[in-house]
């Protein structure tokens, strides 16, 4: 009898489990958002909660959004802002977890390229064309190139907050002590590395534990060696061929740079932050960094003082077949959740975030993020290097997007792991390009 009771109990449990399972399995596991429920240009109701996922989780950057949120709440007492602050490494996982659980906040960070396109494919971003298009009042206050970077199929989905690009930061005093000039081409950079190594310092600190830092090196080298139209063809797995000899040429150049300027295969054992610290601690002469990091690598507190810090664009090889006037970088910004209960309020907050005043605050130390707002940088107050970097971005004829956000995730993964193998010496340049080609073929299916 006891046995039959146990059997029936087990059957009840199994039936309930299977019933629940079938009932739920018949609906999609992750329901995508529906079309935007509200007009982004509608009258704003200044009440309720606004949640925001930022990429300003780093200690130096996190106060920015806190200050802005407090100022907005002070202007509109009925509004409560909830911040979720992540950093460069954690934001991808966090965003995908929120997407998978249909819990995206009202406003969320996005890169341009395939990353941003994912939200649009899934109807998770509000079409902001009506309020931020190039001819709109708000759109005219922002860098046109930055606004355009968030356009997909002629519609504008993102609000660019700042411009980002990659430059070689260097210790001016170390260069001066050895009588070195800013290298004009790639060979001159390698020669400078030889001289610096001879003086006992690390010429370039490279940390690739996270695997994306080398992707940034390669992005700039690829745009120097591969024609832009070929690169753009290869960004799409359906048209990708990865047959241009410039791919192998760029990898060979990276190999030379790693062998002569960095710690050889050691690069995979160091994090990018440890590498940046090496420049700040004057152990290394150079560190390849984003413009948004200029105000972190040389501060009043670091051994490398802001006046000792300089930067230059990664020099191109003399026989470059690609675009030598291109620069690796992209604006970064925010999108509005199509399922937000208060879309006009979210748009209003983003307008406040991109005001001239807040743009200037963003460009000024300690944040040092070049604002996408036209006139959003007071050159007398911002780091002169950031100001010069912004001019370089403006001069660039093409902004090469990050390889890990512009490519299909499977292709990006092939670049990321393949470059670690290449840096460690276990994969040749040809094999790496072949593995990327194979990943693109698989992704196209």
């Amino acid at each position, binding site marked *: *009898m*006891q046995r039959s*009771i146990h059997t*029936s*109990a087990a059957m*009840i*449990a*199994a039936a*309930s*489990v*299977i019933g*629940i*399972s079938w009932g*739920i*399995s018949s609906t*999609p*596991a*992750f*329901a*995508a958002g529906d079309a935007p429920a509200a007009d982004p240009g509608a009258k704003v109701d200044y009440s309720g909660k606004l949640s925001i996922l930022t990429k300003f989780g780093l200690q130096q950057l996190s106060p920015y959004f806190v200050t802005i949120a407090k100022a907005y709440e002070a202007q509109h007492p009925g509004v409560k802002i909830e911040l979720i602050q992540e950093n460069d490494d954690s934001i*991808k*996982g966090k965003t*995908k*977890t929120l*997407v*998978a659980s249909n819990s995206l906040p009202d406003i969320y960070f996005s890169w341009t390229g395939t990353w941003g396109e*994912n*939200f649009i*494919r*899934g*109807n*998770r971003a509000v079409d902001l064309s009506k309020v931020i298009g190039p001819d709109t009042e708000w759109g005219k206050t922002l860098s046109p190139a930055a606004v355009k970077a968030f356009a997909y199929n002629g519609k504008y989905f993102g609000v660019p907050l700042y411009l980002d690009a990659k430059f070689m930061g260097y210790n001016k005093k170390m260069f001066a002590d050895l009588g070195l000039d800013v290298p004009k081409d790639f060979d001159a950079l390698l020669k400078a590395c030889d001289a610096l190594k001879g003086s006992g310092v690390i010429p370039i600190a490279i940390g*690739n*534990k*996270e*695997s994306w830092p080398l992707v940034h090196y390669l992005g700039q080298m690829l745009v120097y060696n591969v024609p832009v139209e070929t690169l753009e063809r290869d960004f799409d797995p359906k048209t990708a061929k990865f047959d241009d000899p410039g791919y192998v040429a760029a990898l060979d150049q990276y190999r030379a740079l790693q062998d002569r300027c960095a*710690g050889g*295969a*050691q*690069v*995979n*054992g*160091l*994090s990018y932050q*440890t590498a940046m610290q090496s420049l700040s601690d004057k152990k290394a002469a150079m560190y390849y960094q984003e413009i948004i990091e200029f105000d972190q690598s040389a501060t009043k507190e670091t051994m490398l003082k802001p006046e000792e810090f300089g930067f230059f664009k990664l020099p191109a090889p003399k026989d470059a077949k690609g675009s030598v006037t291109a620069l690796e970088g992209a604006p970064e910004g925010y999108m509005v959740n199509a399922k937000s209960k208060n879309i006009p309020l979210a748009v209003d907050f983003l307008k406040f975030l991109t005001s001239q005043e807040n743009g200037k605050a963003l460009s000024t130390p300690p944040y040092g993020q070049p604002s996408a707002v036209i006139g959003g940088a007071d050159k007398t107050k911002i780091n002169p290097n950031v100001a010069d970097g912004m001019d370089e971005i403006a001069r660039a004829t093409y902004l090469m997007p990050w390889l890990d956000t512009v490519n299909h*995730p*499977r292709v990006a*993964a092939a670049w990321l*792991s*393949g470059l*670690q*193998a290449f*840096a*460690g010496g*276990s*994969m040749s340049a040809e094999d790496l390009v072949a593995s990327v080609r194979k990943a693109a073929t698989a992704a196209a299916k």
Partner: protein
Amino acid sequence: MKMGSATATSHNSAVKGGAAFDRRAWARHSLLQQLAALRWGIAALIIVGWFVYYPIIDNFFVSTTNQDIFTGEVNAVGLDNYRRLLDDQVVWLALRNNGLYAVFSVIFQVFAAFVLAAIIEGLRNRTWRNFWRAVYFIPSAISTTVTGLLFYFIYQPDIGLLDAFLHLVGLQNLSYTWLGDERTAIYAIIAMSQWQGFGYSTLLFTIAIQKIPRELYDAATIDGAGAIRQLFSITFPLTREMTGMMIIVTIAGAFQVFNEVMVMTGGGPNNSSQVLGTWLYEQGFNQNDMGYAAAIGVVIFVATLITGLLQLWYTKRRRVEV
């Protein structure tokens, strides 16, 4: 009240109708009583079903689909994800790494911990016994994530504590990029794990050893048995149940490794330190391939289920009574 009258009725019936009828009434009464008790268990069954068994079953269904988390599109692909598993070199590498984890963990966290526990319990001075137990246990009290970060800094080339120590003792030729080399990354992580888990196992073994009656050792000493003979003839047989349990628990744990790998290498360089857990995460959250990630989850489930069943079987069969 109802139950009381039912009992009275069945008693009367038994007097009138004979012994066979009486047994049926009693059985019905017993069934009603047990069903009444069962209702209290139903809530628990539903909770366990919802939070434990439903995710397991649903994960299997997810593993037979391709899902795009951004669009919500779900396409049935049958067993394609499992066929893909067989061709995925990283899955085999991850399985090998989990296997290595299990082998090293059994050696250090079971057998070496057992020997250390026996040595500590053999100390005459109680204060020293407590001291060494605490010394070895402290690393287990630190979170795996914190330990992972700590060892990431210890292993740093040139500026890490390990290489600094090697330089200090004149062994600079042994300094190495432990986490940055495909050949050494997984071993460096495993070493950290042993450092952390060793003390916990030792503590469990000391408890098992403390349960062994002292008279057995006293008798063995009178008979002329030395410390090593006592270890193999008394301590080891009488802690066999704990040893068996520890082996199974350690192997199951080796297939659930995640935090330390994620913190120290993220599975790199070039996927060389991937374990099943981190490869699942990479596929699901970085490559947006939830169906395939679910298939990897099924592999982890099967591996841990087998070790779990072994554990149940062992506890039933290998009990040694003192």
